[in-house]
Protein backbone atom coordinates (compact mmCIF):
# COMPACT_ATOMS: atom_id res chain seq x y z
CA UNK A 1 0.00 0.00 0.00
CA UNK A 2 1.88 3.04 -1.24
CA UNK A 3 -0.85 5.58 -1.66
CA UNK A 4 -3.89 7.10 0.04
CA UNK A 5 -7.24 5.69 -1.07
CA UNK A 6 -10.03 8.27 -0.83
CA UNK A 7 -12.70 5.67 -1.51
CA UNK A 8 -11.45 3.56 1.40
CA UNK A 9 -11.55 6.65 3.65
CA UNK A 10 -15.12 7.34 2.58
CA UNK A 11 -16.12 3.75 3.23
CA UNK A 12 -14.60 3.93 6.73
CA UNK A 13 -16.56 7.12 7.29
CA UNK A 14 -19.77 5.22 6.63
CA UNK A 15 -18.59 2.15 8.51
CA UNK A 16 -21.35 1.13 10.91
CA UNK A 17 -18.84 -0.06 13.53
CA UNK A 18 -17.11 3.36 13.52
CA UNK A 19 -20.42 5.22 13.63
CA UNK A 20 -21.35 3.42 16.81
CA UNK A 21 -18.06 4.64 18.23
CA UNK A 22 -19.10 8.20 17.34
CA UNK A 23 -22.29 7.71 19.34
CA UNK A 24 -20.27 6.53 22.33
CA UNK A 25 -18.05 9.64 22.02
CA UNK A 26 -21.15 11.86 21.97
CA UNK A 27 -22.66 9.98 24.90
CA UNK A 28 -19.48 10.29 26.98
CA UNK A 29 -19.28 14.00 26.23
CA UNK A 30 -22.90 14.75 27.08
CA UNK A 31 -22.80 12.69 30.27
CA UNK A 32 -19.52 14.30 31.36
CA UNK A 33 -20.87 17.80 30.69
CA UNK A 34 -24.09 17.19 32.60
CA UNK A 35 -22.38 15.38 35.47
CA UNK A 36 -19.49 17.83 35.44
CA UNK A 37 -21.81 20.83 35.56
CA UNK A 38 -23.77 19.48 38.52
CA UNK A 39 -20.65 18.50 40.44
CA UNK A 40 -18.83 21.62 39.27
CA UNK A 41 -21.57 23.95 40.49
CA UNK A 42 -21.46 22.23 43.88
CA UNK A 43 -17.69 22.65 44.03
CA UNK A 44 -17.96 26.27 42.93
CA UNK A 45 -20.45 26.92 45.73
CA UNK A 46 -18.09 25.34 48.27
CA UNK A 47 -15.19 27.29 46.84
CA UNK A 48 -17.13 30.56 47.32
CA UNK A 49 -18.35 29.62 50.80
CA UNK A 50 -17.12 31.61 53.75
CA UNK A 51 -16.31 28.39 55.61
CA UNK A 52 -12.54 28.00 55.23
CA UNK A 53 -12.64 24.19 55.51
CA UNK A 54 -15.22 23.81 52.72
CA UNK A 55 -13.52 26.42 50.56
CA UNK A 56 -10.17 24.72 51.18
CA UNK A 57 -11.53 21.30 50.23
CA UNK A 58 -12.95 22.71 47.00
CA UNK A 59 -9.67 24.45 46.26
CA UNK A 60 -7.79 21.20 46.83
CA UNK A 61 -10.14 19.31 44.53
CA UNK A 62 -9.69 21.84 41.73
CA UNK A 63 -5.93 21.96 42.24
CA UNK A 64 -5.68 18.18 42.16
CA UNK A 65 -7.79 17.44 39.10
CA UNK A 66 -6.49 20.34 37.04
CA UNK A 67 -2.94 19.60 38.05
CA UNK A 68 -2.82 15.98 36.88
CA UNK A 69 -3.33 14.49 33.42
CA UNK A 70 -6.75 13.06 32.65
CA UNK A 71 -4.92 10.00 31.30
CA UNK A 72 -3.46 9.17 34.71
CA UNK A 73 -6.81 9.78 36.39
CA UNK A 74 -8.50 7.34 34.02
CA UNK A 75 -5.81 4.68 34.39
CA UNK A 76 -5.81 4.96 38.18
CA UNK A 77 -9.59 4.58 38.32
CA UNK A 78 -9.56 1.67 35.86
CA UNK A 79 -6.46 -0.28 36.91
CA UNK A 80 -5.44 1.23 40.24
CA UNK A 81 -8.66 1.18 42.24
CA UNK A 82 -9.26 -2.59 41.80
CA UNK A 83 -6.09 -3.02 43.87
CA UNK A 84 -8.08 -1.46 46.73
CA UNK A 85 -11.05 -3.69 45.95
CA UNK A 86 -12.97 -0.95 44.11
CA UNK A 87 -14.01 -2.13 40.69
CA UNK A 88 -16.28 -0.46 38.14
CA UNK A 89 -17.27 -1.38 34.60
CA UNK A 90 -15.13 0.16 31.86
CA UNK A 91 -17.75 2.68 30.88
CA UNK A 92 -18.35 3.69 34.51
CA UNK A 93 -14.62 4.21 34.96
CA UNK A 94 -14.53 6.46 31.91
CA UNK A 95 -17.55 8.45 33.10
CA UNK A 96 -16.26 8.83 36.64
CA UNK A 97 -12.89 10.01 35.37
CA UNK A 98 -14.32 12.42 32.83
CA UNK A 99 -16.89 13.87 35.24
CA UNK A 100 -14.41 14.31 38.10
CA UNK A 101 -11.97 15.99 35.75
CA UNK A 102 -14.52 18.15 33.93
CA UNK A 103 -16.07 19.28 37.23
CA UNK A 104 -12.77 20.85 38.27
CA UNK A 105 -12.67 22.98 35.12
CA UNK A 106 -16.35 23.85 35.18
CA UNK A 107 -16.19 24.81 38.87
CA UNK A 108 -13.65 27.48 38.01
CA UNK A 109 -15.74 28.70 35.09
CA UNK A 110 -18.89 28.87 37.20
CA UNK A 111 -17.05 30.62 39.99
CA UNK A 112 -15.43 33.25 37.80
CA UNK A 113 -18.79 33.87 36.15
CA UNK A 114 -20.37 34.67 39.49
CA UNK A 115 -17.37 36.70 40.65
CA UNK A 116 -17.64 38.86 37.53
CA UNK A 117 -21.17 39.97 38.40
CA UNK A 118 -20.56 43.25 40.23
CA UNK A 119 -21.33 43.51 43.94
CA UNK A 120 -23.59 46.44 43.10
CA UNK A 121 -26.06 44.06 41.45
CA UNK A 122 -26.50 42.11 44.67
CA UNK A 123 -26.69 45.28 46.72
CA UNK A 124 -29.42 46.67 44.46
CA UNK A 125 -31.33 43.40 44.88
CA UNK A 126 -31.01 43.58 48.68
CA UNK A 127 -32.07 47.21 48.74
CA UNK A 128 -35.18 46.20 46.76
CA UNK A 129 -36.01 43.49 49.34
CA UNK A 130 -35.56 40.68 46.82
CA UNK A 131 -35.29 37.28 48.48
CA UNK A 132 -31.97 35.41 48.24
CA UNK A 133 -33.56 32.95 45.79
CA UNK A 134 -34.94 35.68 43.49
CA UNK A 135 -31.61 37.49 43.69
CA UNK A 136 -29.83 34.34 42.56
CA UNK A 137 -32.33 33.17 39.99
CA UNK A 138 -33.25 36.51 38.38
CA UNK A 139 -30.26 38.77 39.00
CA UNK A 140 -26.96 36.94 39.46
CA UNK A 141 -27.44 33.66 37.61
CA UNK A 142 -28.54 35.13 34.25
CA UNK A 143 -25.63 37.57 34.25
CA UNK A 144 -23.13 34.96 35.40
CA UNK A 145 -24.40 32.44 32.85
CA UNK A 146 -23.94 34.87 30.00
CA UNK A 147 -20.32 35.35 31.06
CA UNK A 148 -19.84 31.59 31.38
CA UNK A 149 -20.93 30.66 27.86
CA UNK A 150 -17.65 31.33 26.02
CA UNK A 151 -15.37 29.48 28.49
CA UNK A 152 -18.00 26.78 28.89
CA UNK A 153 -18.03 26.31 25.13
CA UNK A 154 -14.26 26.02 25.01
CA UNK A 155 -14.24 23.51 27.81
CA UNK A 156 -16.84 21.33 26.10
CA UNK A 157 -14.87 21.47 22.86
CA UNK A 158 -11.79 20.21 24.75
CA UNK A 159 -13.82 17.59 26.52
CA UNK A 160 -15.17 16.25 23.24
CA UNK A 161 -11.61 15.57 22.14
CA UNK A 162 -10.45 14.43 25.57
CA UNK A 163 -12.96 11.56 25.50
CA UNK A 164 -10.51 9.91 23.08
CA UNK A 165 -8.29 9.21 26.10
CA UNK A 166 -10.92 6.74 27.28
CA UNK A 167 -9.69 4.50 24.45
CA UNK A 168 -6.68 3.72 26.62
CA UNK A 169 -8.88 1.97 29.15
CA UNK A 170 -10.61 0.14 26.27
CA UNK A 171 -13.83 2.14 26.01
CA UNK A 172 -14.95 1.59 22.43
CA UNK A 173 -15.50 5.17 21.45
CA UNK A 174 -14.47 6.75 18.16
CA UNK A 175 -10.70 6.63 18.79
CA UNK A 176 -10.66 3.05 20.06
CA UNK A 177 -12.79 1.77 17.19
CA UNK A 178 -10.54 3.58 14.72
CA UNK A 179 -7.58 1.75 16.24
CA UNK A 180 -9.43 -1.53 15.98
CA UNK A 181 -10.27 -0.95 12.31
CA UNK A 182 -6.74 0.16 11.62
CA UNK A 183 -5.25 -2.98 13.17
CA UNK A 184 -7.58 -5.11 11.12
CA UNK A 185 -7.02 -3.46 7.74
CA UNK A 186 -3.73 -1.51 8.12
CA UNK A 187 -5.17 1.45 6.20
CA UNK A 188 -3.86 3.90 8.77
CA UNK A 189 -4.40 7.18 6.95
CA UNK A 190 -7.80 6.19 5.59
CA UNK A 191 -9.18 5.12 8.97
CA UNK A 192 -7.83 8.17 10.80
CA UNK A 193 -9.06 10.47 8.03
CA UNK A 194 -12.58 9.20 8.72
CA UNK A 195 -12.12 9.61 12.50
CA UNK A 196 -10.65 13.09 12.03
CA UNK A 197 -13.63 14.07 9.90
CA UNK A 198 -15.98 12.94 12.64
CA UNK A 199 -14.14 14.94 15.33
CA UNK A 200 -14.19 18.01 13.07
CA UNK A 201 -17.90 17.61 12.44
CA UNK A 202 -18.64 17.24 16.15
CA UNK A 203 -16.55 20.24 17.19
CA UNK A 204 -17.98 22.36 14.36
CA UNK A 205 -21.54 21.49 15.26
CA UNK A 206 -20.77 22.40 18.86
CA UNK A 207 -19.18 25.70 17.72
CA UNK A 208 -22.38 26.54 15.87
CA UNK A 209 -24.49 25.70 18.94
CA UNK A 210 -22.21 27.84 21.09
CA UNK A 211 -22.56 30.80 18.72
CA UNK A 212 -26.34 30.50 18.82
CA UNK A 213 -26.27 30.39 22.63
CA UNK A 214 -24.03 33.45 22.81
CA UNK A 215 -26.33 35.33 20.48
CA UNK A 216 -29.43 34.27 22.35
CA UNK A 217 -28.14 35.16 25.80
CA UNK A 218 -26.26 38.21 24.63
CA UNK A 219 -29.34 40.09 23.38
CA UNK A 220 -28.36 43.28 25.13
CA UNK A 221 -24.70 42.49 25.62
CA UNK A 222 -23.43 45.45 23.61
CA UNK A 223 -25.68 47.67 25.64
CA UNK A 224 -24.53 45.93 28.80
CA UNK A 225 -20.88 46.49 27.93
CA UNK A 226 -21.56 50.20 27.74
CA UNK A 227 -23.25 50.22 31.11
CA UNK A 228 -20.48 48.21 32.73
CA UNK A 229 -17.92 50.60 31.29
CA UNK A 230 -19.85 53.48 32.82
CA UNK A 231 -20.10 51.90 36.24
CA UNK A 232 -17.53 50.68 38.74
CA UNK A 233 -14.74 48.47 37.40
CA UNK A 234 -15.71 44.82 37.29
CA UNK A 235 -13.44 41.85 37.80
CA UNK A 236 -12.92 40.06 34.54
CA UNK A 237 -13.85 36.41 34.32
CA UNK A 238 -10.68 34.49 33.86
CA UNK A 239 -11.16 32.35 30.83
CA UNK A 240 -9.23 29.16 30.74
CA UNK A 241 -9.12 26.31 28.31
CA UNK A 242 -7.89 22.83 29.08
CA UNK A 243 -4.17 22.60 28.47
Amino acid sequence: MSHFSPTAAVSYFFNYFLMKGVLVTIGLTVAAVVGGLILGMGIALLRMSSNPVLAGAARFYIWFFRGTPLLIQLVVIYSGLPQLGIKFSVITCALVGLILNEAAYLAEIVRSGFMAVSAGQREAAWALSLSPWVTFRRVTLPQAFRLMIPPLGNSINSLLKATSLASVISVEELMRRSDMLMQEHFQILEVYAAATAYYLILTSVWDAVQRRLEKHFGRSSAAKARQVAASAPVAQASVEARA
Partner: protein
Amino acid sequence: MSERSMARAEGATVQPQLREVPAVRMEAVYKHYGDFTALNEVDLKVAKGEKIVVCGPSGSGKSTLIRCINHIEKHDEGLIYVNGVELDHQRKNIDAVRRDTGMVFQSFNLFPHMTVLENCTLAPMTANGMSEAEAKDLAMHFLTKVRIPDQAAKFPGQLSGGQQQRVAIARALCMRPKIMLFDEPTSALDPEMVKEVLETMKKLAEEGMTMLCVTHEMGFAREVADRIVFMNEGKVVEQAAPEEFFKHPKSERARTFLDQIIH
Protein backbone atom coordinates in the same frame (compact mmCIF):
# COMPACT_ATOMS: atom_id res chain seq x y z
CA MET B 1 -29.39 57.76 76.82
CA SER B 2 -32.36 56.89 79.03
CA GLU B 3 -34.47 56.08 75.98
CA ARG B 4 -31.80 53.73 74.83
CA SER B 5 -31.47 51.86 78.10
CA MET B 6 -35.25 51.56 78.28
CA ALA B 7 -35.41 49.97 74.85
CA ARG B 8 -32.67 47.61 75.89
CA ALA B 9 -34.26 46.73 79.21
CA GLU B 10 -37.49 45.73 77.51
CA GLY B 11 -35.60 43.81 74.85
CA ALA B 12 -38.00 45.40 72.39
CA THR B 13 -37.31 45.64 68.71
CA VAL B 14 -39.74 48.56 68.38
CA GLN B 15 -38.79 51.58 70.41
CA PRO B 16 -41.35 53.03 72.82
CA GLN B 17 -43.32 55.80 71.17
CA LEU B 18 -42.46 58.73 73.31
CA ARG B 19 -42.93 61.42 70.70
CA GLU B 20 -43.16 60.86 66.98
CA VAL B 21 -40.84 58.04 66.00
CA PRO B 22 -37.94 59.43 63.97
CA ALA B 23 -37.35 58.04 60.48
CA VAL B 24 -33.76 57.21 61.39
CA ARG B 25 -32.04 57.20 64.73
CA MET B 26 -28.38 56.22 65.10
CA GLU B 27 -26.68 56.09 68.45
CA ALA B 28 -22.95 55.66 68.93
CA VAL B 29 -22.64 53.64 65.74
CA TYR B 30 -19.25 52.16 64.89
CA LYS B 31 -18.17 50.37 61.76
CA HIS B 32 -14.74 48.83 61.35
CA TYR B 33 -12.96 47.41 58.33
CA GLY B 34 -10.16 45.47 59.95
CA ASP B 35 -8.18 48.01 61.94
CA PHE B 36 -9.77 50.90 60.10
CA THR B 37 -12.67 52.72 61.72
CA ALA B 38 -15.05 53.84 58.98
CA LEU B 39 -17.76 55.07 61.36
CA ASN B 40 -16.61 56.44 64.67
CA GLU B 41 -19.34 56.96 67.26
CA VAL B 42 -21.92 58.37 64.89
CA ASP B 43 -25.12 59.84 66.32
CA LEU B 44 -27.79 60.96 63.91
CA LYS B 45 -31.48 61.57 64.09
CA VAL B 46 -33.64 62.18 61.04
CA ALA B 47 -37.26 63.23 61.50
CA LYS B 48 -40.00 62.03 59.19
CA GLY B 49 -40.15 64.17 56.07
CA GLU B 50 -36.74 65.67 56.74
CA LYS B 51 -34.21 66.11 53.94
CA ILE B 52 -30.61 65.58 54.91
CA VAL B 53 -27.57 66.18 52.76
CA VAL B 54 -24.45 64.33 53.87
CA CYS B 55 -21.16 65.74 52.67
CA GLY B 56 -17.50 65.51 53.50
CA PRO B 57 -14.18 64.56 51.95
CA SER B 58 -13.72 61.30 50.09
CA GLY B 59 -13.25 58.38 52.46
CA SER B 60 -14.93 60.15 55.36
CA GLY B 61 -17.56 57.42 55.74
CA LYS B 62 -20.56 58.94 53.94
CA SER B 63 -21.33 55.82 51.91
CA THR B 64 -20.75 53.59 54.90
CA LEU B 65 -23.18 55.68 56.96
CA ILE B 66 -25.93 55.53 54.40
CA ARG B 67 -25.37 51.84 53.64
CA CYS B 68 -25.65 50.95 57.31
CA ILE B 69 -29.17 52.40 57.35
CA ASN B 70 -30.52 49.62 55.12
CA HIS B 71 -28.04 47.04 56.39
CA ILE B 72 -26.16 46.65 53.13
CA GLU B 73 -23.25 47.26 55.44
CA LYS B 74 -23.44 45.78 58.94
CA HIS B 75 -22.61 48.16 61.78
CA ASP B 76 -20.40 46.70 64.50
CA GLU B 77 -21.55 48.66 67.54
CA GLY B 78 -24.27 51.05 68.50
CA LEU B 79 -27.96 51.23 67.73
CA ILE B 80 -29.79 51.99 64.53
CA TYR B 81 -33.57 52.38 64.40
CA VAL B 82 -35.43 52.91 61.16
CA ASN B 83 -39.04 53.98 61.63
CA GLY B 84 -38.81 52.50 65.09
CA VAL B 85 -37.49 49.11 63.97
CA GLU B 86 -34.16 48.21 65.47
CA LEU B 87 -31.57 47.02 62.96
CA ASP B 88 -30.25 44.25 65.17
CA HIS B 89 -29.12 41.81 62.46
CA GLN B 90 -32.32 39.77 62.80
CA ARG B 91 -33.64 38.78 59.40
CA LYS B 92 -37.20 40.00 59.97
CA ASN B 93 -36.05 43.41 61.15
CA ILE B 94 -33.64 43.79 58.26
CA ASP B 95 -36.45 42.89 55.86
CA ALA B 96 -38.79 45.39 57.50
CA VAL B 97 -36.19 48.15 57.26
CA ARG B 98 -35.37 47.38 53.63
CA ARG B 99 -39.05 47.55 52.76
CA ASP B 100 -39.19 51.03 54.26
CA THR B 101 -36.10 52.30 52.47
CA GLY B 102 -35.23 52.80 48.83
CA MET B 103 -31.66 53.24 47.66
CA VAL B 104 -30.11 54.96 44.66
CA PHE B 105 -26.47 54.20 43.87
CA GLN B 106 -23.76 56.20 42.20
CA SER B 107 -23.36 53.53 39.51
CA PHE B 108 -27.13 53.02 39.06
CA ASN B 109 -26.90 49.23 39.48
CA LEU B 110 -29.79 48.62 37.14
CA PHE B 111 -30.17 44.99 36.08
CA PRO B 112 -28.59 45.08 32.61
CA HIS B 113 -30.28 41.93 31.30
CA MET B 114 -33.79 43.23 31.98
CA THR B 115 -35.76 45.97 30.29
CA VAL B 116 -36.48 49.20 32.13
CA LEU B 117 -40.00 47.95 32.81
CA GLU B 118 -38.76 44.57 34.11
CA ASN B 119 -36.28 46.39 36.35
CA CYS B 120 -39.22 48.19 37.91
CA THR B 121 -41.66 45.28 38.17
CA LEU B 122 -39.33 42.58 39.52
CA ALA B 123 -39.41 43.59 43.18
CA PRO B 124 -43.14 44.44 43.38
CA MET B 125 -43.98 41.09 41.76
CA THR B 126 -41.58 38.83 43.63
CA ALA B 127 -41.29 40.57 47.00
CA ASN B 128 -44.80 42.02 47.25
CA GLY B 129 -46.68 39.35 45.31
CA MET B 130 -48.22 41.89 42.97
CA SER B 131 -49.78 40.66 39.74
CA GLU B 132 -47.93 41.46 36.55
CA ALA B 133 -50.65 43.86 35.40
CA GLU B 134 -50.67 45.74 38.70
CA ALA B 135 -46.87 45.90 38.79
CA LYS B 136 -46.76 47.24 35.23
CA ASP B 137 -49.29 49.96 36.07
CA LEU B 138 -47.26 50.89 39.11
CA ALA B 139 -44.01 50.91 37.14
CA MET B 140 -45.52 53.07 34.39
CA HIS B 141 -46.83 55.45 37.03
CA PHE B 142 -43.35 56.02 38.44
CA LEU B 143 -41.63 55.97 35.05
CA THR B 144 -44.03 58.72 34.02
CA LYS B 145 -43.17 60.59 37.18
CA VAL B 146 -39.43 60.51 36.35
CA ARG B 147 -40.42 61.49 32.78
CA ILE B 148 -39.25 58.43 30.83
CA PRO B 149 -42.35 56.31 30.22
CA ASP B 150 -41.38 56.03 26.55
CA GLN B 151 -38.18 54.13 27.42
CA ALA B 152 -39.91 51.30 29.26
CA ALA B 153 -39.14 48.62 26.66
CA LYS B 154 -35.45 49.48 26.34
CA PHE B 155 -32.52 47.90 28.12
CA PRO B 156 -30.59 50.06 30.59
CA GLY B 157 -27.49 50.09 28.39
CA GLN B 158 -29.48 51.83 25.65
CA LEU B 159 -30.18 54.84 27.87
CA SER B 160 -28.08 57.83 28.83
CA GLY B 161 -26.65 57.97 32.33
CA GLY B 162 -29.22 60.52 33.44
CA GLN B 163 -32.04 58.36 32.13
CA GLN B 164 -30.61 55.29 33.83
CA GLN B 165 -30.42 57.07 37.14
CA ARG B 166 -34.03 58.22 36.80
CA VAL B 167 -35.04 54.62 36.10
CA ALA B 168 -33.16 53.61 39.24
CA ILE B 169 -35.18 56.17 41.21
CA ALA B 170 -38.44 54.90 39.70
CA ARG B 171 -37.43 51.31 40.45
CA ALA B 172 -36.86 52.16 44.10
CA LEU B 173 -40.14 54.11 44.31
CA CYS B 174 -42.08 51.10 43.01
CA MET B 175 -41.55 49.51 46.42
CA ARG B 176 -43.22 52.58 47.97
CA PRO B 177 -40.42 53.35 50.44
CA LYS B 178 -40.87 55.86 53.24
CA ILE B 179 -37.22 56.88 53.21
CA MET B 180 -34.98 57.36 50.20
CA LEU B 181 -31.21 56.96 50.45
CA PHE B 182 -29.05 58.48 47.72
CA ASP B 183 -25.31 57.76 47.49
CA GLU B 184 -23.77 60.35 45.16
CA PRO B 185 -26.51 59.85 42.58
CA THR B 186 -25.05 62.38 40.15
CA SER B 187 -21.31 61.74 40.53
CA ALA B 188 -21.12 59.28 37.64
CA LEU B 189 -23.06 61.53 35.27
CA ASP B 190 -21.93 63.86 32.54
CA PRO B 191 -22.52 67.47 33.65
CA GLU B 192 -25.45 68.03 31.29
CA MET B 193 -27.37 65.14 32.87
CA VAL B 194 -26.93 66.15 36.49
CA LYS B 195 -29.79 68.60 36.35
CA GLU B 196 -32.49 66.16 35.24
CA VAL B 197 -31.66 63.83 38.12
CA LEU B 198 -31.56 66.64 40.67
CA GLU B 199 -34.92 67.91 39.38
CA THR B 200 -36.39 64.46 39.94
CA MET B 201 -35.01 64.42 43.46
CA LYS B 202 -36.38 67.89 44.16
CA LYS B 203 -39.82 66.80 43.06
CA LEU B 204 -39.60 63.87 45.43
CA ALA B 205 -38.56 66.20 48.24
CA GLU B 206 -41.51 68.51 47.56
CA GLU B 207 -43.86 65.56 47.97
CA GLY B 208 -42.62 65.08 51.51
CA MET B 209 -40.32 62.09 51.10
CA THR B 210 -37.78 61.59 53.87
CA MET B 211 -34.41 61.79 52.15
CA LEU B 212 -30.77 61.22 53.01
CA CYS B 213 -28.53 62.28 50.15
CA VAL B 214 -24.80 61.99 49.94
CA THR B 215 -23.95 64.63 47.38
CA HIS B 216 -21.52 67.37 46.57
CA GLU B 217 -24.17 69.34 44.67
CA MET B 218 -24.21 72.33 46.97
CA GLY B 219 -26.91 74.13 44.96
CA PHE B 220 -29.20 71.20 45.62
CA ALA B 221 -28.20 71.17 49.28
CA ARG B 222 -28.99 74.87 49.68
CA GLU B 223 -32.34 74.54 48.00
CA VAL B 224 -33.62 71.24 49.30
CA ALA B 225 -31.84 70.23 52.49
CA ASP B 226 -33.28 70.93 55.92
CA ARG B 227 -29.94 70.05 57.41
CA ILE B 228 -26.39 69.42 56.26
CA VAL B 229 -24.40 66.68 57.95
CA PHE B 230 -20.68 67.10 57.52
CA MET B 231 -18.47 64.08 58.04
CA ASN B 232 -14.75 63.67 58.43
CA GLU B 233 -12.72 60.58 59.29
CA GLY B 234 -15.78 58.55 60.20
CA LYS B 235 -17.25 61.17 62.51
CA VAL B 236 -20.17 63.52 62.14
CA VAL B 237 -18.27 66.74 62.69
CA GLU B 238 -21.01 69.29 62.14
CA GLN B 239 -24.74 69.45 61.57
CA ALA B 240 -26.48 72.66 60.63
CA ALA B 241 -29.09 74.22 58.40
CA PRO B 242 -27.62 74.93 54.93
CA GLU B 243 -27.51 78.72 55.43
CA GLU B 244 -25.65 78.35 58.67
CA PHE B 245 -23.31 75.64 57.39
CA PHE B 246 -22.26 77.51 54.25
CA LYS B 247 -21.93 80.91 55.92
CA HIS B 248 -20.42 79.93 59.23
CA PRO B 249 -18.87 76.47 59.18
CA LYS B 250 -17.73 75.80 62.71
CA SER B 251 -14.85 73.40 62.10
CA GLU B 252 -11.63 74.10 60.29
CA ARG B 253 -12.10 70.88 58.31
CA ALA B 254 -15.50 72.00 57.01
CA ARG B 255 -14.06 75.36 56.00
CA THR B 256 -11.27 73.80 53.93
CA PHE B 257 -13.74 71.31 52.46
CA LEU B 258 -16.10 74.09 51.39
CA ASP B 259 -13.21 76.09 49.93
CA GLN B 260 -12.20 73.09 47.85
CA ILE B 261 -15.58 72.24 46.41
CA ILE B 262 -16.76 75.77 45.81
CA HIS B 263 -13.62 76.75 43.90
